């Protein structure tokens, strides 16, 4: 089972090292990790996905709380959330195949951000399920290069209109 956690931390030198070091030495399995600025100056926000059981997720949270630079940590696993990641996918495409790829781009509301005689670079934003699905469909062509950000996540406030895909952010194949 995968758990999504958000951690807020003081933007100090070495803070990422502290967090990563803790996860490594406590033998926690991390699927992905994202750090960025938050709405508060001097505070960074990290989204990370832990692979394990409920106990492991709780331990990660408790151990992380002990880091002096970590100001707050929250598990998003039992809350409806919006989780999004961005992927850049370079596909080998002949001129004749372009239309086919563009069809997929349209279906997945992706974007073509670079094109050459032999390839196209696609940008897609969405939850992991959606990105996995696009990659799956692109197997028909040759995937030359891929980079993914890993999810960033935020809790929903209006929980009435929860989409199933937002709760199970990691649905579908793991990567």
């Amino acid at each position, binding site marked *: 089972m995968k758990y999504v956690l958000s951690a807020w*931390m*003081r933007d100090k*030198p*070495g803070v990422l*090292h*502290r967090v990563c*070091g*803790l996860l490594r*030495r406590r033998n926690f399995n991390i699927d992905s990790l994202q750090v960025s600025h938050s709405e508060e100056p001097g505070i960074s926000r990290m989204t990370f996905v832990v692979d394990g059981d409920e*106990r492991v997720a*709780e*331990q990660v949270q*408790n*151990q992380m*709380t*002990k*880091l*002096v*630079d*970590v*100001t*707050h940590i929250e598990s998003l696993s039992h809350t409806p959330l919006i989780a999004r990641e961005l992927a850049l996918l370079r596909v080998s495409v002949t001129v004749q195949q372009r239309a086919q790829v563009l069809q997929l781009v349209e279906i997945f509301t992706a974007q073509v951000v670079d094109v050459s005689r032999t390839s196209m670079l696609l940008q897609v934003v969405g939850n992991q399920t959606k990105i996995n699905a696009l990659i799956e469909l692109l197997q028909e062509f040759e995937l030359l290069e891929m980079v993914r950000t890993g999810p960033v996540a935020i809790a929903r406030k209006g929980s009435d209109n929860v989409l199933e895909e937002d709760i199970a952010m990691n649905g579908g194949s793991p990567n």
Partner: protein
Amino acid sequence: MKASTVSQDQRILDRNTPRSLTGSEMIWDACVLEGVTTLFGHPGGAILPAYDALAYYEQHRLLHHVLVRHEQCAAHMADGYARTTGQVGVCVATSGPGATNLVTGLATAQMDSVPIVAITGQVPTHLLGTDAFQESDIVGVTQPVVKHNYLITDVADLPLALKEAFHIAREGRPGVVLVDVCKDVQIAVGEFRYDMEISLPGYVPYPQHEESNLHKAAELINRAESPLIMAGHGIHLAGVADVLRHMVEKAEIPVVTTLLGTGNLPETHPLSLGMGGMHGEAFANEAVQSCDVLIALGMRFDDRITGRLDHFAKQASIIHFELDVAEVGKNVQPDVTVLGDLAVTLPALNELILPNTHPEWIGALAGRKEDSARVDILTYEVDELIPPFVIRQIWESTSQRKSPEEVIVTTDVGQHQMWESQYYLHERAGMLLTSGGLGTMGYGLPAAIGAQMAMPHHRVWAIVGDGGFQMTLQELATVQQEGLPVKIAIINNGFLGMVRQWQQFFYDQRYVGTPILSPDYVKLAAAYEIPALCVKGPEQVQAAVQAANDADGPFLIEFQVKEEINVYPMIAPGAAVDDMFRRPKAQIVQANGGVTPAF
């Protein structure tokens, strides 16, 4: 004292007036303001400006620096000092090898929740990251073994970092904070003040307990038929050993301790079952396995105390009183958790605990107490020199001269450490200094030095093995240089004894790398001008221990004990508590009349 000096001292003790100081002076001013009196360290290039500034503080008796012979021992001495006084211990080292040498000592302290601030010199800021001479990334190196650390590259950041360092080391669950100060920062001048507020929103040293959980805990305990307390280091750290005693006497609850919880309840108290775990007495572990409510107070369910987790106290409801949120559910999932400072939660629990008796439970335990090392030793017929007898003699001789508040025992790690815990009966918490978590050989002598520096009039015994002692014996020079009356008992069995015992039990007696040669310890001590004796027979023990206790200065005794004897009982690593190696009756130890046994 000259008038100008007085005003200088006042200047240092004044925390409110901003003043212009060098980085070096800031370090020492902060130490003085934090109540530190003794530093343990070793100078070198990158920390020289700080040492130069230290001259003033030494001259005016504000700080005393103890020169160590290896930086690992600086950390162990600061550790011994901190455990003895409850204050933050301070150790100092230079960059590179000086700093990396500290690591084992810092890890030892961190594992056992000992407050230490380590000050290290670092290469100048313009050389950082260039693999400069004696450069090592000590902040990176120590990160996994400290509570927090700092690299200071700007003198403006130094005062707050120092104040935070002491705060973090001391408050909450104590631990180690390292402050790495670049050489140019030590020289630079900046504004120093010490009245600033600390703002660490991410650091919650004392979590609040939930009242409802406290009531649940009290209800379970009040209803229990066979309750048992497992008392850890947290009891001593919170200073609530007296509350514990009051509570267990009121409700007749027996107490097992962890190694670091030794003495939380006097070990001669009828309700004390001594230490539990791998080498705890059989009855102590049987009590854990048969109680109906296990009340864990300030302990972390270390594998050495639980053995195989799925067999540990499986019949009992478990209540965990704990300060550190990450310890809850880490190893054992409690039924009730009371988070928070034991200084608050234990007195609150005590209020809710009703007077009670458990005659059946106590009676059953009393029956089992006959199978005990402490009983066996009383019927031991003396013809060979064995370690339990030696340790028993040290306890008797020393406790005849000094009250329990005045005797500190330190140990290394291994068989002698476990025999100490079995045969030396501690009456007070915090008087046994031993590396429980990390299990650091070589801890005994430097920790004894730190303790003796803190308590010059206490009797400090370092009970060490021939293996561990040879790791840090260079500190005999420190003993002599500081004129410390530390007493050293070397239990020499010619082996790395505990490793040998494991090889005997689990590796078909293939003694690989465990036979160990010792020097002539009497001659070695003589080289340091420390009086010493070598004891080979049981009849010499009493006189030798007395000679040590009578000596005004340091004293060393080498006990050449029987080589291949084992620590019993033993629960094999990873085994269930119920599967223990008991003490073979044939090896029952013998005789020493006139002493009231604990059991």
